[in-house]
């Protein structure tokens, strides 16, 4: 019986002249009409009438757009409005499912009806997206990742506030920086945002299944592993959590334990030695299944999403295993370190008024030694130091005089700021005799690099050690 049904379904597919694979989701109506014309499902007169009807809708929309104050608009704006109209028409025709049904509907009904139904669907989608966002905001992760927080706190609310269903429905004008593990960026307008939030909800709910202190420590360890400030970088939190949960399973631990020890890492490394690509995929997917079972994940979309991410992890692992770079994927638990002592103190940041007075005082000093003295006596926070360095109130040798008064830890902190990109890419070694930076952002950075190059190699190696010991989150600057 089942086989017979499959056979009949196959015949039905064969009899159809159009299937969705031939059509573009982003230009559904246009591609539907074109394929329909080619396959003889509508004739050129019907095609022409559809175009005339669309132009009528456009004319009406232009009148509304200009509030009947102007009979003409720029072609660019008209094209945007037409794209918005087609976005709504697409929404309606696409939800009819079968493309041939959609063509029949177009033939039997005026496009005005299709458009109005489409606008209603887009509006409904916007409401569903708003509700989805509310859930995500209520369940937001407590993490210090800027892109995640800004996307949820600022970018998405702005999109939902500004989104224009009638004249600009196709536009995805939000600056959504936080990257998802899986994202289809070919989708436009509110449908994109709905898809983004659907996936973000899955990711957030999954992350909430873990101990949140473990999750936050995982982020810190990720920052250490990559040599960057994880708070300001663009990466996907869910992926890190999922990957470590999978590695935990592979090392014989529970998936809920995302802290991976050196011993576990050795076991994982052993597991991947002498293993074929197909075996990698197999063991990852098995681990994902265990994880789904452990967390009792029954939601089909969530489990599908996690499995897809498992496949992505397997693909990545095939490459890193081949190149012996497993350590770039497994985030290891690192021991807590006591941060080195520094004279920089964030809590001693001065007021803007006092800052301006001191700048004036420094500018009026004739002797360099007096300038340096005022700075060292009054400035304590790193933020204030960076501000004063950026004011260009010091001249040539005065920078060197100031840097000379700093200890190794302070110089290491400034090195981490000046060489952020280079340290992130592991493309700099302080011990080199002549270190350089591709793009120097300011005079003080240029002077700092000259100063560092003059330092005795033994001191340089001490500073280098601090550079690797100090984590960015310890530098209370950002």
């Amino acid at each position, binding site marked *: 019986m089942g086989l017979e049904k499959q056979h009949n379904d196959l015949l039905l597919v064969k009899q159809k002249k159009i299937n969705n694979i031939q059509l573009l989701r982003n230009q559904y109506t246009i591609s539907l009409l074109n394929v329909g014309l080619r396959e003889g499902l509508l004739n050129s007169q019907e095609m022409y009438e559809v175009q005339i009807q669309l132009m009528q809708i456009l004319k009406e929309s232009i009148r509304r757009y200009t509030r009947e*104050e102007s*009979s*003409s*608009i*720029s*072609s*660019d*704006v*008209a094209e945007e409005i037409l794209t918005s109209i087609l976005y709504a028409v697409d929404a309606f025709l696409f939800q009819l499912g079968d493309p041939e049904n959609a063509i029949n509907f177009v033939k039997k009904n005026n496009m005005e009806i299709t458009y109005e139904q489409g606008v209603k669907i887009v509006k409904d989608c916007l409401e569903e997206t708003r509700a989805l966002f509310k859930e995500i905001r209520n369940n937001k992760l407590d993490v210090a990742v800027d892109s995640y927080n800004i996307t949820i706190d600022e970018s998405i609310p702005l999109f939902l506030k500004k989104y224009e269903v009638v004249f600009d429905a196709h536009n995805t004008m939000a600056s959504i920086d936080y990257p998802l593990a899986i994202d289809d960026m070919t989708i436009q307008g509110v449908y994109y945002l709905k898809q983004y939030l659907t996936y973000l909800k899955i990711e957030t709910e999954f992350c909430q299944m873990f101990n949140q202190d473990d999750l936050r420590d995982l982020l810190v360890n990720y920052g250490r592993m990559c040599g960057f400030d994880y708070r300001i970088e663009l990466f996907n939190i869910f992926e890190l959590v999922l990957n470590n949960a999978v590695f935990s399973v592979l090392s014989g631990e529970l998936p809920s334990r995302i802290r991976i020890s050196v011993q576990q890492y050795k076991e994982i490394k052993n597991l991947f030695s002498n293993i074929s690509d197909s075996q990698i995929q197999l063991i990852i997917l098995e681990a994902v299944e265990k994880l789904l079972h452990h967390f009792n994940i029954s939601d089909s979309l969530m489990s599908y999403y996690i499995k897809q991410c498992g496949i992505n992890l397997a693909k990545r692992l095939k490459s890193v295993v081949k190149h012996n770079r497993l350590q770039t994927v497994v985030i290891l638990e690192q021991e807590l370190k006591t941060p080195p002592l520094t004279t920089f103190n964030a809590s001693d940041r001065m007021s803007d008024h006092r800052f301006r007075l001191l700048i004036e005082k420094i500018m009026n000093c004739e002797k360099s030694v007096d300038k340096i003295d005022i700075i060292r006596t009054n400035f304590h926070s790193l933020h204030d130091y960076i501000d004063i360095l950026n004011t260009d109130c010091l001249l040539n040798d005065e920078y060197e005089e100031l840097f000379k008064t700093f200890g190794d830890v302070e110089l290491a902190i400034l090195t981490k700021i000046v060489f952020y990109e280079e340290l992130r890419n592991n493309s700099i070694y302080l011990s080199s005799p002549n270190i350089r930076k591709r793009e120097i952002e300011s005079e003080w950075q240029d002077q700092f690099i000259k100063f560092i190059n003059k330092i005795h190699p033994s001191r340089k190696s001490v500073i280098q050690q601090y550079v690797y010991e100090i984590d960015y989150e310890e530098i209370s600057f950002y």
Partner: protein
Amino acid sequence: MLLPQFFQSLDISILEKYTDEVLKVNEKTKQYGLVLTSNEIKDMIISRNQILYNYGRVETDISVIKELAEVFCTSPYIDNKNYQLTLNELQEIFYYMKNETEDRISDSQLVDIIREYFDGVCGGSLELLKSKLDEFAQRFRSDVRFRKSVFEGDEHLWD
């Protein structure tokens, strides 16, 4: 996308429809001795389409030609000899100004502004009109106070 071409594509029926619409304006303008023939109107509509295309604009109807004819028919600088030529020039100036003032002035107000300049400071000179309106557009874009005065109709600030 071929949107401008589609909007401006003139099938005969639309050309006839637009011509009939503009012909009706003669009822008002003939009392000033100004009349457009069907052929003159058709030529103007064809020019209008080219102008719109050149300036990257699309138009939903023929109201601008009609409004220009209705507003300028009382100008002391227009007679039946230069009527069609002047209207043609004026429609080009009109769409140019729509772009230069970034679509921020309504059609009716813009036609009134052009008329004020044409009859006033320009003394009916189309060359001078273009140059004065260029200055107007430049000030309109850069000077917030001037822009406000335009919207509030403070004509003494325009000179």
